């Protein structure tokens, strides 16, 4: 095995390409600095090793055989031809190089020289450029906004996928068309044109916003919020406009629905608080009352003992008076609650208010396995009421009605609650809630509106009292009459809104 001369090696060191010389058995005889850099082996480590360690795949596996075949007089598929091959770095990574191999003349046994040119960098650069172009288009298309570029005259130059999708048209049908005439909803075209002119005239690079409808291919309209910016190709005068638009049709719709749902929730919450408030009130009041009872009873016991501890009795009496004051304070708070600081009396259609809470009321019916019947008179004059408060009263009355009937077996008796609205002789609006339960006995009828009076095991005795105070605040009266043929009927008459006062 003869090594290349010092002259040759010096030349190789100066070569930019990686150069590897091998002998007839594939052993590395020379490995220049560029090769060191390319493959990560030090020359001293590479020398004498089989060159196939630098190869990958099939090349690596068949190199020795191919070499033998060539040396035995076979054709070479490699010599004198440059080709791209994948090679292997010392760290195992693979990369592509441009390889040309030649047989060194006058060497016996023959030696071969390989020049390797790293093409992966160039490739990568090319691929990156291509990739970036695709990416730009992708970004344009992936953008969650509609992008539309027009020239000065408003003729479409470019649209992205999002815009194409919203407009429901082909790209080819849009390019070259006038934007406003082709895509803007007719009633919004003046608006769109004005915004367009303003943008061209402004001379500013600041984006400007506007909102208008576009018309889709199907003739639908989508509501879009736009930001427009003037395009200037270096010069002062705008050459066109770039519009980015967001289709907010669904969002607007959802907002509207959310708003309505929120309002419903609020009124449900206020309706629910009536029962909870009552429970809270009785708990709050029972605390000081319990303390008063305990203290008073303790005093009585202490005073019965021969040598009563008088300071202790005095302390307990002080506590009794302060707890009585505490109870009074709670009652004052309740009264201010029931007086309802934020009464919002507005013009309402009573039937509309009832229909609004019908779904909620129907749950009560389902729980009691009964029916809720609406018997609403039409047409009725409008009334000025706090809608939610009237709905609270309706909830309470209907709830009571179902509960009253739930107390006894109802064989053959229709298990239903009827809400009726009628026009009275005086032209006012009567609302009634009737059931087919046991109705009210004589003395109960007297007490039913009294606070804390209840016939129910879990009742607080506040529902009807609060309902009555609400109705009273509406210049009306919550009344009771027996229902025919049986049951109870609660009713109130709301004064009709006079035409003159509208």
């Amino acid at each position, binding site marked *: 095995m003869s090594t290349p001369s010092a002259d040759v090696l010096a030349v190789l060191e100066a070569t930019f390409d990686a150069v590897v010389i091998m002998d007839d058995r594939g052993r590395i005889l020379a490995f220049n600095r560029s090769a060191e850099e390319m493959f990560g082996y030090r020359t001293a480590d590479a020398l004498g090793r089989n060159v196939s360690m630098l190869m990958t795949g099939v090349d690596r596996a068949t190199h020795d055989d191919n070499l033998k075949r060539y040396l035995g007089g076979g054709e070479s598929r490699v010599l004198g031809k440059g080709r791209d091959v994948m090679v292997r770095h010392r760290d195992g990574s693979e990369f592509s190089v441009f390889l040309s191999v030649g047989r060194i003349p006058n060497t016996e046994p023959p030696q071969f020289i390989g020049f390797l040119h790293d093409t992966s960098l160039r490739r990568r650069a090319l691929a990156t450029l291509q990739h970036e172009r695709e990416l730009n288009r992708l970004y344009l298309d992936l953008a969650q906004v509609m992008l539309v570029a027009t020239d000065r005259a408003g003729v479409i130059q470019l649209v992205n996928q999002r815009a194409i999708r919203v407009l429901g048209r082909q790209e080819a049908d849009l390019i070259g068309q006038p934007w406003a005439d082709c895509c803007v909803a007719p009633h919004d075209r003046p608006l769109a044109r004005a915004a367009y002119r303003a943008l061209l005239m402004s001379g500013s690079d600041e984006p400007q916003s506007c909102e208008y409808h576009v018309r889709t291919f199907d003739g639908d309209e989508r509501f879009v919020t736009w930001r427009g910016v003037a395009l200037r190709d270096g010069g002062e005068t705008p050459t066109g406009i770039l519009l980015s638009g967001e289709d907010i049709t669904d969002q607007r719709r959802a907002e509207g629905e959310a708003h309505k749902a929120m309002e419903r929730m609020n009124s449900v919450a206020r309706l629910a608080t009536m029962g909870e408030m009552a*429970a809270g009130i*009785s*708990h*709050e009041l*029972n*605390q*000081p*009352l*319990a*303390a*008063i*009872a*305990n*203290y008073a*009873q*303790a*005093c009585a*016991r*202490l005073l019965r*003992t021969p040598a009563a501890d008088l300071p*202790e009795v005095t302390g*307990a009496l002080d*506590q009794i008076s*302060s*707890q009585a004051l*505490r109870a009074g304070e709670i009652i004052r708070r309740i009264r201010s609650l029931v007086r309802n600081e934020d009464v919002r009396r507005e013009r309402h259609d009573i039937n509309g208010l009832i229909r609004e809470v019908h779904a909620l009321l129907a749950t009560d019916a389902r729980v009691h396995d009964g029916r809720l019947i609406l018997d609403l008179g039409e047409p009725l004059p409008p009334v000025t009421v706090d809608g939610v408060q009237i709905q609270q009263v309706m909830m309470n009355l209907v709830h009571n009605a179902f509960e009253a009937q739930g107390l006894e077996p109802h064989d053959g008796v229709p298990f239903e609650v009827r809400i009726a609205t009628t026009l009275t002789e005086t032209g006012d609006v009567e609302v009634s809630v009737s059931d087919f339960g046991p109705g009210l006995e004589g003395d109960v009828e007297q007490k039913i509106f009294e606070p804390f009076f209840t016939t129910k*095991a*879990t009742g607080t005795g506040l529902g009807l009292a609060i309902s009555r105070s609400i109705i009273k605040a509406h210049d009306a009266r919550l009344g009771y009459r027996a229902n025919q043929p049986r049951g109870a009927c609660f009713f109130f008459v709301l004064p009709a809104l006079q035409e003159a006062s509208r």
Partner: protein
Amino acid sequence: MKDLPSTVFVVDDDDAVRNSLKLLLKSAGIAAESAASAQEFLSTYDSSQPGCLVLDVRMPGMSGLEMQHELNVRGAIIPVIFISGHGDIPMAVEAMQHGAFDFLQKPFRDQDLLDRVQRALARDAENRTRLRLTDRIRERLSTLSPREREVLQLVTQGKANKMVAGDLGVSQRTVEIHRAHVMQKMEAGSLAELVRMMMTVAQ
């Protein structure tokens, strides 16, 4: 071991209710201690202290029902009388299902509370006596040899010495000796007493 004197523990977050209850119990000659929260009570509670609990249902933090649950988990046997400011039937039912001794709605007549407290204290004393008794019986049982245990089992099933001897394959004389040891170790004066002891343990 003699029991410590019984104490009524009042747990209620409302200062006025808590203090008035303590005074009421004191005026009736009953020792009372109080805590303003379930956590405060649980952190100092010694289950060997006999007594009963007067527990408010609705408290911020851990509610009365949650505290009852915690006591059950700890295996405490203290009787619990719930007091509530609002007559909540489902809540009362739940409390009773979980072993509450009684349920009172605030405000209450002093005699109603004191009667229940006395009954709860009596129940607690009973429970503790029974527990102590079973502990003692178990202790004695543990001193028996395996053979003596077999004899005990058969004898308390009502078998005569002769039958026991047959069952165990030993002489009647041997059974008599084992039986005497059992009676002695168990400190039983009669077979009837021995049977009663076994029933107590089985409970």
